[in-house]
Structure formats: structure tokens, C-alpha cells
């Protein structure tokens, strides 16, 4: 590693990064698996086919194991703004606090309450009402994601505010809620959620095919997963690409860093891979593969567009904000962008291949594909983590783009030993949670799990 964290700001950043990345391993699966389980239960409700009920219960269990950690780790995120970033909290509270408060009041309350109704309501509610509770919880989780991304996007592209006495004051809640950056980030993130859901369901189904376990049942789920995964992964490639344009106008430095583009160019090629070229002393890569004009298109929407280089942007920023280094870590940003994009393409290819095999009725026997799809469960996790590293580290040194620097935003009253303590506690706790969660998810997803409840009647029998 390049840096051994020595300052309180570095420690606070490491802690926030660790806890947010961890939180976001669970959130997108909640966002994406929720609607799939709801569709399964709807199909059972509509057709009366018991197999859809079994699938609802099977994937519903995975959904809930995952949800529990999402809730537990989400609370950490809300507290951490005040705990570690009190100067930030004072600066942004007027603006940033509002979507967080609204999220709790309008979305998270609904999600938690209705999920409780769904889990325990199988025999207390009419089937129709019981189904509705799940859809309401899912809709609320999607609404919740919107408000969180409104808050995050304000840090990337501040709108609807004015600065009074060194604090940001909200001037237009509509500007905040309709922030173009937020709308695109929302679309991008929700599609990521659906990719999580469908790739995980597909992978679990393929695990069952591999063992020849309940093939008919899981073929239905695999079909559903493919129906979602193919269009969604394809759309995500497009949406992610167009998202670049929003980033360019709000955060030119982030785009330049994600391409390791030191000098302004027109037209600009997209670098697929390069060795070297990541530091000021070594601007020219010793080896690279570049696709002509594609970066221009991604960043500006035109194949002839101009993309400003890191050096020019650095000079501009110094003229505006005073001397300092305004470039993020180019190497990390370049590779996080590549990892995210390549994982995205790979998921599309796997989904398309799966759909083709399904259509040719070869999915059941294509063992090589079963193994691939099972391994591909890791891909959405890798892509989402890389995506957030790109988004958040690409904004550095700013905590709120152009308004507040990260190293001026931490809590003055919180010392390095305190943060070291909390970081140690969170890492220890999260490792244990992660291991238990993985073991449980695996046990409840595996094909050869002893089915001690199999002989029990389905809930439908008691209506």
C-alpha cells in the first residue's frame, strides 16, 4: 500500500469507506431480490402453482437473511456523519439532512413495518393483502434509495443552495430533488440492484442444476432471472455510459482521472488497459490499448467532444480555490472504472449466453455454464464496490464538490485513538457478521440442504 494512515482524517475516511462499502454489499441485493420475490409470490397468487410458492419461500429466506445485515449496518451510516464528520454535518445539515429525514419518515418506516407484516402475516392477512405488504415494502425500499441518492448526489453536484456564513442553506427543495445527477445516479443504482437480484438468483439456480436438484422448479426461477437480467444488464451498459456525461459536467476531474487523461484531448480515445501513466512524473503509459473516439462519446455525447485533461483542470481549480492538489488518486480511479465496466460487460454476456441456452433448451445440461453463472455471483459485488470507490474517491479532495474539502470536514473533538478503536470494532464485528451471513446464505441456498420442513404443509393449505 502507498499510505499508512497517520492522520485522523485518513482514519475517518478509511472507516467511512469500509462501513459504506460493506453496507452496500447488502443494500443492492435487498433492492433487487425484493421485486423478484414479489413477482414470484404474485405468480403464485395468480396461477395457484405451488412451485412459485416454494420459490417465494426459498428466495424470501435469502432476502431476509441479507436484509437483516443491511438494516444493522445502515444505522452505522446515519450515525457516522455526526460522529466522524461534525464539521461536514454543520456545513451541509440544512440541505443534506432534509433528504435523510424524509427518507426515514416517508420510506424506511414503511419498508420496515410492512416487511414485518409480510414475514409474520402469512396466516393473519388475506393472501391478497399479504402480497400487497411485500410490494409496499419493496416500493418503499426503492423510494428510500431515491432519497439517499439525492443526498449523495448533492455532494457530487450541489444544487438548490446558497452559502451563508460558511454554511450551505437550502433554497429550492425541487432543485435538490430533481438534481439531474441524482436522477441518473438513481437509475444507475436501481439497475445495479436488479442486476444483483437477477444474477444471484441465476447463480443459485445454476448451482441446483449442477447438482441435478429440483431442476424443474429452479428452471422457472432461472427463466425469471434471465428475463430480468438480459435487458437490465444491457440497459445498464448504456445508462452507465450516459452517466459519464453527467459526471463530466459536474466533476470533470473525476472523468479525467478515470481515464488517466493528463492532457486535454479532442477527440479522445478510451483506454481499455494501460501500464504506467498514473502519476505526474510518469504521464505517458509504457503500454496501452485504446479505442479511438469512445471517450469523447462517453464524456460528451459526441464522438468529436473535447475532454479536459488533469493538468488543465488542476490549473483551473488552483485559480479558483487557491493552491493545493485537486487531483484524486489517478491509479485507483482508473482501475475502479475499468473493473466496474468490465464486470458490467461480463454480466451482460453471461446473461445473454444463459438466455440463448435457455432458448435452445440446453440450459439444463450446460454444466460449464452452471459453474460460470455460480462464479458470476461475485461480479455484481465487485462492480458495485468499484463503482462506489470511483464515485467517492473520484470526488477527492472535496467532500462536497467545490464547496468543502474533506480534510476540513472531520470532527475536531474526535481523536485518532477513538477512531482507531471504532475502526477496530467495526472491522471485527463486520468480519464476524460477514462470515456468519455467508455461511447462512450458503446453507439456505445450497441444493443438498437437509429439508427438515419439507413434509410440512404449505401455508396455502390453511387458508
Amino acid at each position, binding site marked *: 500500500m502507498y499510505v499508512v494512515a497517520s492522520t485522523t482524517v485518513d482514519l475517518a475516511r478509511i472507516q467511512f469507506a469500509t462501513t459504506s462499502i460493506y453496507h452496500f454489499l447488502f443494500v443492492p441485493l435487498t433492492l433487487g431480490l425484493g421485486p423478484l420475490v414479489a413477482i414470484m409470490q404474485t405468480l403464485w397468487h395468480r396461477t395457484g402453482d405451488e412451485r412459485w410458492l416454494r420459490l417465494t419461500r426459498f428466495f424470501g429466506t435469502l432476502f431476509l437473511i441479507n436484509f437483516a445485515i443491511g438494516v444493522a*449496518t445502515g444505522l452505522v451510516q446515519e450515525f457516522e456523519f455526526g460522529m466522524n464528520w461534525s464539521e461536514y454535518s454543520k456545513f451541509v445539515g*440544512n440541505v443534506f439532512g432534509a433528504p435523510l429525514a424524509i427518507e426515514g419518515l416517508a420510506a424506511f418506516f414503511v419498508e420496515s*413495518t410492512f416487511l414485518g407484516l409480510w414475514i409474520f402475516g402469512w396466516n393473519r392477512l388475506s393472501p391478497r393483502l399479504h402480497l400487497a405488504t411485500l410490494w409496499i415494502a419493496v416500493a418503499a425500499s426503492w423510494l428510500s434509495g431515491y432519497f439517499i441518492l439525492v443526498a449523495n448526489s448533492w455532494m457530487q453536484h450541489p444544487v438548490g443552495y446558497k452559502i451563508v456564513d460558511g454554511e450551505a442553506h437550502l433554497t429550492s427543495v425541487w432543485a435538490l430533488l430533481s438534481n439531474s445527477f441524482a436522477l441518473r445516479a438513481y437509475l444507475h443504482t436501481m439497475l445495479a440492484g436488479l442486476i444483483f437480484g437477477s444474477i444471484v438468483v441465476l447463480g443459485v439456480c445454476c448451482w441446483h442444476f449442477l447438482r441435478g436438484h429440483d431442476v424443474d422448479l429452479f428452471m422457472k426461477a432461472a427463466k425469471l432471472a434471465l428475463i430480468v437480467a438480459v435487458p437490465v444488464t444491457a440497459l445498464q451498459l448504456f445508462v452507465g455510459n450516459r452517466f459519464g456525461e453527467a459526471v463530466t459536467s459536474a466533476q470533470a476531474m473525476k472523468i479525467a482521472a478515470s481515464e488517466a487523461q493528463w492532457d486535454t484531448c479532442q477527440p479522445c480515445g478510451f483506454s481499455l488497459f494501460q501500464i504506467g501513466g498514473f502519476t505526474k512524473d510518469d504521464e505517458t503509459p509504457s503500454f496501452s490499448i485504446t479505442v479511438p473516439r469512445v471517450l469523447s462519446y462517453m464524456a460528451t455525447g459526441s464522438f468529436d467532444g473535447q475532454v479536459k485533461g488533469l493538468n488543465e483542470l488542476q490549473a483551473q481549480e488552483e485559480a479558483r480555490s487557491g493552491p493545493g492538489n485537486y487531483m484524486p488518486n489517478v491509479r485507483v480511479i482508473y482501475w475502479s472504472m475499468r473493473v466496474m465496466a468490465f464486470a458490467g460487460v461480463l454480466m451482460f454476456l453471461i446473461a445473454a449466453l444463459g438466455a440463448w441456452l435457455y432458448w435452445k433448451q440446453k440450459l439444463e445440461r450446460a454444466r460449464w455454464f452452471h459453474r460460470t453463472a455460480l462464479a458470476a455471483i461475485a461480479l455484481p459485488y465487485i462492480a458495485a464496490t468499484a463503482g462506489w470507490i470511483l464515485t467517492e474517491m473520484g470526488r477527492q479532495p472535496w467532500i462536497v464538490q467545490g464547496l468543502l474539502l474533506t480534510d476540513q470536514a472531520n470532527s475536531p473533538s474526535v481523536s485518532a485513538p477513538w477512531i482507531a478503536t471504532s475502526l477496530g470494532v467495526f472491522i471485527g464485528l463486520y468480519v464476524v457478521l460477514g462470515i456468519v451471513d455467508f455461511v447462512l446464505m450458503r446453507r439456505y441456498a445450497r441444493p443438498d440442504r437437509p429439508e427438515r420442513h419439507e413434509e410440512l404443509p*404449505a401455508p396455502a393449505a390453511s387458508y
Partner: protein
Amino acid sequence: MTLAIFWFCLIAVLWSGYLVLEGFDFGVGMLLPFVPRNESERGAMLKTIGPVWDGNEVWLVVAGGATFAAFPAWYATMFSGFYLALLLVLFFLIIRVVSFEWREKSDSPRWRAVWMWANAIGSTGVALVWGIALSDLLHGLPLDSKNDYAGNFWDLFSGYSVLGGVAFVLVFAFHGACFLTLRTEGDLCERSRRAARTLAIPACAAAAAYLIWTVFVAIDRNDKDVFPPVLPAAIAIVALVVAAILVYAGRSGTAFALTAGGIVAAVATLFTSLYPRVVVSSPDFANSLTVSTAASEHYTLVVISVVAAITTPLVLLYQGWTYYVFRARVTGDEVYSPEEAPRSSPAG
């Protein structure tokens, strides 16, 4: 009444909602190792709060979010000042949250014991730390001229704040025991009633001592008069004492309504004692953070007020409906019934 004062009251309401609702969840958790005789009864106990605890916890999430939005400076000072205390809260909350979902995932007695204790210790720990921390807001924290916390971890402990923590634990345990008598049947119900009887006097004594001390602290350290803080304090003490009497008279259901009322009145005592400050500074009283200096701008307050005005009644409505749906008493045997899909009997 200005919007800032309205939000100060609303945050008091959110804390009341959180402590009344999560209070009995905590109480049930604390009693988990002691009241039931077997795993089936333990499952029944957890099932009394199973459908609602997550929704109850959102009251805390919203209290935190509302403080951030309506009083950024309060949120910043309180959360950074209580850094290690809140780390403890998060630790206890997390082990408790996962215990609900994970305990039943294996039949191994050791596994079940681990998560039973995680729930019990988590519930006790959260109650204890919140009691200490909320008392500290009134008792006074060493703040500097920029309202940043200037003390260390041990400055959070005083005789008063520790009594606050103990009172929270005992009252929630009592509150939870009363709740269980309403929601269980037979033997388990009888033993819950006995637990309520055992807890009634210690809980009342601790709460009364704490609330009386609160009034004195408000006078001594926050420049308040005896009135109004003494009024909610008296109501809280009376409610809890009557609850205790009712428990001995065998009417623990009604007692539950009174413990809930007592908790609301106790939160009201604390917030009435705090006003017009949100964090009292000690020894430099002049550095205290007040409602007006900590509040957000008018426009932000208007926005969140509109949202709160629409959503809060709805929250009360659908959460109330949840309690209505799950009003039937829980029996020990029901836990392993097949109905509990998909939570405990996923198809394979």
C-alpha cells in the same frame, strides 16, 4: 411558536415513540434468559415482538435524521461528543438486530444460547447507554466555544447519568414484562407476571429517584425553575407507581398502558428540563447549544415540516394497524408451526 420549537417538540415525540416502543422490545430481550423455561417459550417471547421490532427501531433512525435536518449543530455536537458511547450503542444494536434473524437458523443449543445472550446483552446495553447519554445532555458536557466536545469518554459518567442508565434499564425491563403479560398465554404469561411483580418496585424507585434528581439538575445546571419540569416528572412517577400497584393487583395489561405513559412523561421531563438548550455546557455554561442557535434555516424547517405533517399520522396509522393484526396472544407451541413461512420453514 416558531418552527424550531416545533421541531424540538417533534424530536421529543420521536424519542418518546422510540423509547416506548423499542422500550418493551428491550425489556423482552432483557428477560429472554430468565423468564422462559425452554426454547419453545423463548421463541414465543421473541415472536411477541418479531413483527414489530424493526419498525420500532425506525423511530430512532428518524429521530437521528430529524436532528440532522432540523438541528445540524445539535446533531454534530451530540454525535461527535458521544463518539465512543454511540459506538457502544451501534455495537449493541447490531448484535441485537442480527440475533432476531439468526437465532432460529440452527437447532444447536450453543448457537441458540449465543444469540439469546446477544439479544439480552444488546438490549440491556443500548438502554443503559441511551440513559446515560440523554442524561448527559442536561447534566452538561464540556463544550468549547465552537460547541465542540472538549472532554474524554469518562466525562460522560456522573452519578446522575449512571442513575439515568440504570433507571432506563429497569423501567424497560418492567415495561417489557407488562407487555409480555398482554401477549403471551398460560405458564409463560404467569411467569411474565411474576417478573413484572419482581421488577415493579426497583423500577419505580430508580425512576422516581432519577426524575426528582432531573428536576434538581435542571434547576442547578440549566437555570430552570421548578415548574414546568416538575409537572411531567410528577406525572411519570405517578404513572409508574400506579402501574406497579396494578401489577400487584393482577391487572398488568392496564399497567402496560401506564408504563408507556410513564416513559412518555419521563422523556417530556428531560426535554422540558433541557429547553431552551439542546446540549448544556458545563463548566462553561455560556457555550451551551440552544434551540435557536442549533436550528436549520426557516426554509429547510418548512420543507421537513410539510413532510412530517403528512407522514407522521400515516406512520401511526399503519404501525397501529400492525399491532392490531398481531393482537392475538402467542403460545409456546405456535413457534414451530408451519405457518411461519418463509422465515423458519423455507422450501428447498
